[in-house]
Structures are given as C-alpha cells and as structure tokens.
C-alpha cells in the first residue's frame, strides 16, 4: 500500500496538478470550483506535515524523482525555508479559494470559469513546485508554468486594459525567466550540475579557474529573479497587472507569486552562491540594498498619488517588497529572519487588503478612491478589516507588520547602519499617508450616491477576509510560529547547512 509520509514532497505538487487536470474536464464553474477547493484545502496539510517533520527531525526531506539519484536526477528537497514558503502559499490558496466562488462568478463569464480555475490550480502547482524543488532547471520550468497561468489569469480581467497588462507582464516575465535560465546555463557549463546542493559544492573549486562565467551567472540570475519579484526599478509590470486582473487573481498573486520569487532569490544567494564565492566578488547585496530603499520611498510616493485603489495597493506591494529585499541585502541573521517574517506577514496583510477591495468591487464595481466616500458606513466589517490590514502595512505595534519591521530595524542596527532605521520609519510614515487617505474617504465623508446600495459581501467572501485580518493581529502578538521558524531557517541559510 502507498506510504504517504514518504511521498509528501511530490504529493504537494501532484494535488494541485491533478486538480488542474480534473477542472479542465469540468465544464461548469461550480464543479470546477469544488475540485479546486478540494485540492487547495489538501495542500496545506501536506506542507504542514513536511514543515513539522523537518522542524522535529532537523533534517531536510529529500525525494528523488523516478529513483534517479540526486545530482543527476531531479531532487525535491524540503528544509525549513521552503517548508515555510510552501505552508504560506498553500494557506493563502485556501483563503483565496473560499473567496473565489462568488468573486469569480461575478467577474468571469460562465463558460470561462472552469478554465479560470484550471489556470489558478496550474499557477498553484507552479508556485509550490518552485518552492519544493532542489533543481535549478526544474525551478525554471515551474516558474514558467506558474507565469503562463498568471498571464492568463490577468488577461481574463473585465477591462480591455487587462489584455495589455497581461501582454506587458508576458514580455517582462519571459525576459526575467530567460535571464534566470541564462544564469543556470552558465553554471551548468562550468560545473555540469543543476542540483542546488551539488552546485554549491562544485562552484567553490570552479571559482579559482572560471570566476567570470560564475559571476556573470550570479548577475543574470539576480536580475532575472528580481524582475519576477518586482524589485524597483524592474516593477513596471506589476501595478497594471494587479490593477486589471480579476479581484481573486490579484489577491492570490499578491500573496504568493512575488513571495515565491523572493524564496528563489534567497535560495540562489545563500544556499548556492554564498557558500561558494566570497561576498566581495560581486557587490550584489549592496545594489539590492540601494534598490530596496529606493523602492520603499519611490513606490510609496507613487502609491500616495494614485487614484485607483488597486494600483495604490500594487505600488504599496512594490514598496513592501523593498523591505523584504532590504533584509536579504543586509545578509545577516536578523535581516534574513526579517525578510522571511515579512514575506509571511505581508502575504497575509496584502491578501486581506485585496480581498477587501475585491469585496467593494463585488458590491459597487468601483475602484477609484474618490468615488468610495462613506463606504465604511455601508460595509463596516469589510472596511474594518481593511483598516486592520492597512495598519499592519504601516507597521503599527500590535500588528504583524510591526514584528517584521522591528526585526528589520534590529538587523540594520546589528550591521551598524543606524541611519537605516530612520529610513525604515520614514517610509512607514509614507504608508500612513496612503492608507490614511483611503480611511479618510471611507469613514469621514458622507456616503455618496455611488455607494448608496452597497452592503456587506456574502459570507464566503467576508469570512476569509476577517480571518486574514485576525491573523494580522494574531501574528503581531503571538510571534512564536513566524519568528522561531524564520530564525531557524535564517541560521540554516547563513550557516551553509543544507
């Protein structure tokens, strides 16, 4: 009989994959939704089981595809870092799939709904696959699986600008993925291996004779992945993609896609290159720090002057990604912990914010902030959840966002960069402005004619929104799960333990 516990890493990918195949056979939206929901609900159990096993035993889980031994065959390798990312992605998947039914039914034509869920499940397959695999080329394939599904999800948006946004993302995303694969190719030419762990072992000796292709590979892979995770100034595709995608797709992508790219960047930097080559060989982390700070400020300013609420949150995402990459750029124990914690917290908060906006779109069809005056009195619970998550984005004590920014500030101090703390606080004040702008309109103005008919969204949409808002507060107070896992994963990354 099948022993499930041995096959967990592949089951993680197979569950959404077979879900996608089944939804492709389904002709009706509700059937497809039921299949997608089943697959999404199963996924976090698998990832939680793996994370628990790794946490308890302290050893990574290794699974070789088709019994071909590791450096030659494709190895799936789950350690604390990607166990954490897997859990995050699959949990966001559960929250969004509950939200999806009404939202998708309202925004997508009936005959396209089944395909829409197929694309969602393929995207989930790809994202989980990137996180679970220990093979550089396999990661590229999963990256493209998730990206192709993402382009379709965005292109199915109601407005015709969605097609343009999807096209631009397709061009940028493909360039990013191709840059990544050029880097992998150079590494393969030098070392003859694609396995992350094996690469780390072989790059060190190869560095003496063939430093140039290795450094070129590092540069190519960094740029490629930074395109996918929308690091400033490579973020141009993100605001339009998020603004014109269907609400459900925006919420799902904001919580998962960029986060998985961040994971891949960490894996490349710390599990492969940091072990093999001296940090001084190429000033990658310095560049990332500068760009992160630029993202924190410039994207926040863009968010302040943005009239479309979805674009405002999208620019906010670019700014928040700046905090995450800043932690990577600091490259110390606390910085990496801060990055991981913020990956988790930001996924919760931003998904909640896009849920709230999606609920507003569901009831009113409006996304322009000026038209939403007084919406807080018509949809009190929705806007309350928006405020809680918005406070988290600002980083108010008592919310999850505070924890990650606290860690980030500690990491900067640890490095001796006192001025960085001021920058972090200053950019948080910019978040006060754009979140405050929305709250001012929503609560302190008389309800306008546009929102007169609005009321709370259906319970299937409200529940995941409130759950994520609650999680924002919960992980701001009880930080045991996030900090313990993130700190352990950060030490493992920096210690070179694989």
């Amino acid at each position, binding site marked *: *009989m*099948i022993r499930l516990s041995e*096959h967990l890493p*592949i089951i993680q990918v*197979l569950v959404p*994959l*077979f879900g*996608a*195949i089944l939804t*492709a*056979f389904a002709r009706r939206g509700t059937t497809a939704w039921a299949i997608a929901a089943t697959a999404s609900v199963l996924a976090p159990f698998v990832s939680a089981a793996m994370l628990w096993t790794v946490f308890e035993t302290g050893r990574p889980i290794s*699974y*070789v*595809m*088709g*019994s071909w031994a590791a450096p030659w065959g494709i190895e799936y390798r789950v350690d604390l870092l990607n166990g954490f990312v897997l859990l995050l992605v699959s949990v966001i998947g559960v929250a969004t799939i509950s939200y999806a039914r009404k939202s998708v039914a309202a925004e997508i034509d009936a005959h396209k709904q089944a395909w829409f869920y*197929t694309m969602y499940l393929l995207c989930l397959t790809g994202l989980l696959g990137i996180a679970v695999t220990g093979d550089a080329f396999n990661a590229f394939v999963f990256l493209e699986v998730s990206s192709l599904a993402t382009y379709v999800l965005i292109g199915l948006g109601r407005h015709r600008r969605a097609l343009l946004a999807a096209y631009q993302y397709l061009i940028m995303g493909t360039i990013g993925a191709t840059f990544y694969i050029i880097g992998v190719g150079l590494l393969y030419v030098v070392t003859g291996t694609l396995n992350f762990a094996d690469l780390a072992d072989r790059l060190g000796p190869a560095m003496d004779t063939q430093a140039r292709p290795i450094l070129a590979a590092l540069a190519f892979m960094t740029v490629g992945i930074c395109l996918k995770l929308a690091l400033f100034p490579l973020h141009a595709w993100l605001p339009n993609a998020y603004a014109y995608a269907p609400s459900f797709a925006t919420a799902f992508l904001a919580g998962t896609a960029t986060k998985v790219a961040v994971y891949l960047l960490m894996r490349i930097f710390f599990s492969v290159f940091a072990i093999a080559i001296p940090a001084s060989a190429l000033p990658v982390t310095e560049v990332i720090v500068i760009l992160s700070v630029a993202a924190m400020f410039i994207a926040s300013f863009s968010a302040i002057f943005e009239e479309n609420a979805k674009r405002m949150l999208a620019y906010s995402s670019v700014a928040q990604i700046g905090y995450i990459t800043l932690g990577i750029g600091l490259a110390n124990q606390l910085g990496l912990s801060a990055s991981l914690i913020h990956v988790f917290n930001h996924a919760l908060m931003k998904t909640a914010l896009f849920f709230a906006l999606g609920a507003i779109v569901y009831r009113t069809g409006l996304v322009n902030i000026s038209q939403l005056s007084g919406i807080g009195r018509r949809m009190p619970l929705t806007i309350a959840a928006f405020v809680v998550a918005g406070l988290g984005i600002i980083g108010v004590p008592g919310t999850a966002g505070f924890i990650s920014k606290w860690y980030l500030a500690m990491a900067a101090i640890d490095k001796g960069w006192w001025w960085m703390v001021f920058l972090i606080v200053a950019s948080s004040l910019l978040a006060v402005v754009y979140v405050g702008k929305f709250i001012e309109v929503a609560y302190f103005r008389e309800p306008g004619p546009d929102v007169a008919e609005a009321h709370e969204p259906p319970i299937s949409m409200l529940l995941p929104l409130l759950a994520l808002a609650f999680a924002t507060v919960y992980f701001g107070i009880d930080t045991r799960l996030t900090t313990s896992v993130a700190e352990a994963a950060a030490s493992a990354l920096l210690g070179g333990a694989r």
Partner: protein
Amino acid sequence: MKFDLILRVGTKMILPFILLFAIYVHFHGDYGPGGGFQAGVILAAGIILYAMVFGLDAARRIAPQGLVELLVPTGVAVFAAAGLPGMFKDFRYLDYGVYGHDFLHAHEWGILIVETGVIITVFSTMVAIFYAFADRGRG
C-alpha cells in the same frame, strides 16, 4: 479551394501516409530518435492540411472541437498518471520500474505510456490552437 482538383486528390493520397508516419515516429520514440512530441505535431499537421484543403467544417467532422478540447487534459492526465503506479509499490513517483520485470523493459513501457500522453496533448493542443484562430474574423 473547392475546385482545385490536384490539391484535393493529392491531399487525400498523402494524408494516410502522414498519419502512418506519425504513428511510426511515435512508436520509434522509446528507443531512438522520435517520440510523442514530433509525432503529435505531424498528426496535427495532417488534420490542419485537411482543414486547409477541404474546409474547417470538414475537419471538424473528423476531429470535433469538443473532443479535441477534451484530449488536451487527457494527455496530461496520462503523463501524470504514468508515474503513480510506482508509488504504490515502493517506487518513487515517475519510476517506471513497476511496469516490467527488468529495468530496460519496464522503462521502455513507461516511456511509451508517457509518449502516448505527450502525443495526445501535443496533437490536440496544436489542433485546438488552429481551430481557435482559424475562424476568427469570419463573423
């Protein structure tokens, strides 16, 4: 091209050989150059040639659109499911050792199943793309 006799007769003569060649490439793929990917494209090329000469409606009669769209996920399902039986017998996913007594034969069978999934998906995807765009702009 209703009245182009040479094209019509020529297509009818060449079509069986195109399909036969596709089958040959497919079954040759497990132990030599070839395989489901190329075979699927050749098979689809046969259908598309037929559609170009005899019209879209005639092609839809021999390869109905609904069927083609069902075949796309079927092929993926065959491919993905080929790895499953091993998991029940102490093998890893995608280990084809389960399909035979010795390594070579088992893997030959495993690859053949995978190639079958590939030929179904590649063929149906190509034809589905052709159908999707062939009658755009005709109203």
